[in-house]
């Protein structure tokens, strides 16, 4: 964890307690998850009880306490994707990567998560790998998509 970046983020909000969610969001964006040390520092610097910071960190879906893979995969399970077969796509990915939804592969290359509606329902079913969209998927297209990111 980069202490300097954390100090910068905290400095931006000047210990304004109502900005706690924004602070956690910035940390999540910077590190890809909420490192334990960061949570401790936030609690101390902003003078907010650790229990409260932790309850916020677990309540909101935007936060994760575990680091994600180098290529985080988000499978859209929004309504449009669901009726066009998102569940089968998710399970195909689980089999291909030999992990369950929510987990990261041993080599740290991929993590697999579910999101709800990424805003391009016209392309349903959709997955995102990092910032890239892959739409109109079928189970048979999955290995090809993964290959793009595997070295």
């Amino acid at each position: 964890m980069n202490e300097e970046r954390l100090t910068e983020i905290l400095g931006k909000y000047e210990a304004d307690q109502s900005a706690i969610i924004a602070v956690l969001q910035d940390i999540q964006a910077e590190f890809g998850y909420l490192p334990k040390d960061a949570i401790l520092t936030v609690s101390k610097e902003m003078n907010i009880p650790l229990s409260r910071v932790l309850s916020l960190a677990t309540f909101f879906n935007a936060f994760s306490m575990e680091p994600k893979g180098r290529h985080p995969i988000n499978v859209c399970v929004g309504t449009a994707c669901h009726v066009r077969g998102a569940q089968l796509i998710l399970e195909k990915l689980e089999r291909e990567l030999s992990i369950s939804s929510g987990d990261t592969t041993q080599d740290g290359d991929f993590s697999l998560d579910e999101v709800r509606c990424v805003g391009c329902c016209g392309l349903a079913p959709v997955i995102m790998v990092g910032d890239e969209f892959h739409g109109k998927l079928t189970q048979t297209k999955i290995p090809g998509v993964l290959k793009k990111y595997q070295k």
Partner: protein
Amino acid sequence: MEEQTSEKTYRIHLMVCAGTGCVSNNSFAVKDALKEEIKKQGLENEVLVVTTGCNGFCERGPLLVVEPGKIFYQQLTIKDIPHLVEEHFLKGRPVEKLMYSPPEDKTPIPVLNDIAFFKGQVLIALRNRGLIDPEKIDEYIARDGYTGMAKALTEMTAEEVLEEVKQSGLRGRGGGGFPTGLKWEFVRRASTNNGGIKYIVCNGDEGDPGAFMDRSLLEADPHSVIEGMVIGAKAIGAQQGIVYVRNEYPLALKRLNIALDAAREYGLLGENILDSGFDFDIKVTRGAGAFVCGEETALLASIEGRLGEPRPRPPFPAEKGLWGQPTCVNNVETWANIPVIINRGADWYHSIGTETSKGTKVFSLVGKINNTGLVEVPMGISLKEIVYDIGGGIPGGKEFKAVQTGGPSGGCIPKEKIDLPIDYESLSEAGSMMGSGGMVVMDEETCMVDVARYFLSFTQDESCGKCTPCREGTKEMLNILTKITEGKGTEEDLTLLLELAQSIKDSALCGLGNTAPNPVLTTLKYFREEYEAHIKDKKCPAHVCRELNTYTIDEVACVNVGKGCDMCRRNCASDAIVGEKGKAHTVIQDKCIKCGVCYDVCRFGAVKVD
């Protein structure tokens, strides 16, 4: 006006859609290719490339509209660009093969307004869609932007603005449909505590998991929301505004911030707006990904940095909202309607729609429908017109089954009710609700029990856990539904489902719980026979519920028609198919995990599912 002279110097404007749908379809690469080719052909002083927000017809992206003339190009790839630029922009010959042609008849339709998808739409909230670059305030201003605000601030009293909105009949577009003018009046009348100020909030949390109206609005036309909020602030007497944007919408956030900066720079926001002596500014808060935060009291809690849990109302936010002060919460689309109402007057707005539902509503039309996208239609239009005329019907010649509106709080409207007019009351009477504008079309291959289970698992997941009926009740309902989809349900389960639904509806703390049973109730009401098929026959008629499916291969079709093509075996996820090229294939049932790949890859219809 400066921008008009600069517009005149270009012979042609190319409006490239840069909404999320088109961007994910590579529209930025298409834009770059266009720019490059235009330069190559020496047209850069004649042809201007503009990036716009979502055009609406996302299904056909990436999209390009050529102005003047509104020539509509679709599904572009970078390979198409050199030919297009040379033919159309250099030689003046529009390229037919890149135009839209309806699935049923292959004649290309060159002009956007002639395409059925656009024809039935009436644009008020989306008035600027595809016409402006959302990152350029001048383009918004050139299309009458901020004139409604100027009128409200310099020519009208606060009471007059309030009266205009009341008279217009506008109702909240966030789901509840509460009359907007009336809400404003409550906040205006409420007094602040301890010398505080009043707030207005734009709810851009958009929790419905299959809808993207608010996102598109913020991405495509952020100034319309800002202008609406300033007008509201004047009517209410608020000094501070907050836009709450869903966490998953980075592009909306970016464009909103650009818009806010530009508005401040132009003196349209901040102190003494337009020299009227009126002060008002807007801050942005990011959501953190919790559906319940769309509920107004939870939303306000999360803005204050607290856990996004709802609290009982009253007191309503209009009395005690943000930091205990009177607060007006309205939805993104509600705000975007305001400038037009002030500009064109309440009477004009009132003339559109039905007796009780005025104006238009934006829907995100998705699911099993040919023309997926964003549509804005006058209230009172029939479901049929939306599905068949605008939506172009169901793909693959499949049969239409139902439309789901209102997201996890709504319900399914069956085929028999296809003539239902779209307004708040008709949708509620049918057991669904207007909701924020999600409209998911379902066909014969959609299982209604699975849909009910899907929404229940969503609400169960998103229940904040504060009240027992919602936390425990939805869990129990979900268990029953899961049992049914696995073929383990009983007749008594249906009775139990109904009882649970009623008690959750009556006793949950907030709208999330109160409405969570709706998807189950409507599917049970209109599609009871599908539930019974799962329970009695242990069959899923739509072949969606996996445990109930059996895959087999028709030997005759496999060998005689398909020549034992072996595709199924090679793609099988679990080595459950035996056979070799040229010979008959069979499924070993106890190895089959029912992923259905064999069914999808067989081009000869030899794989059967039952």
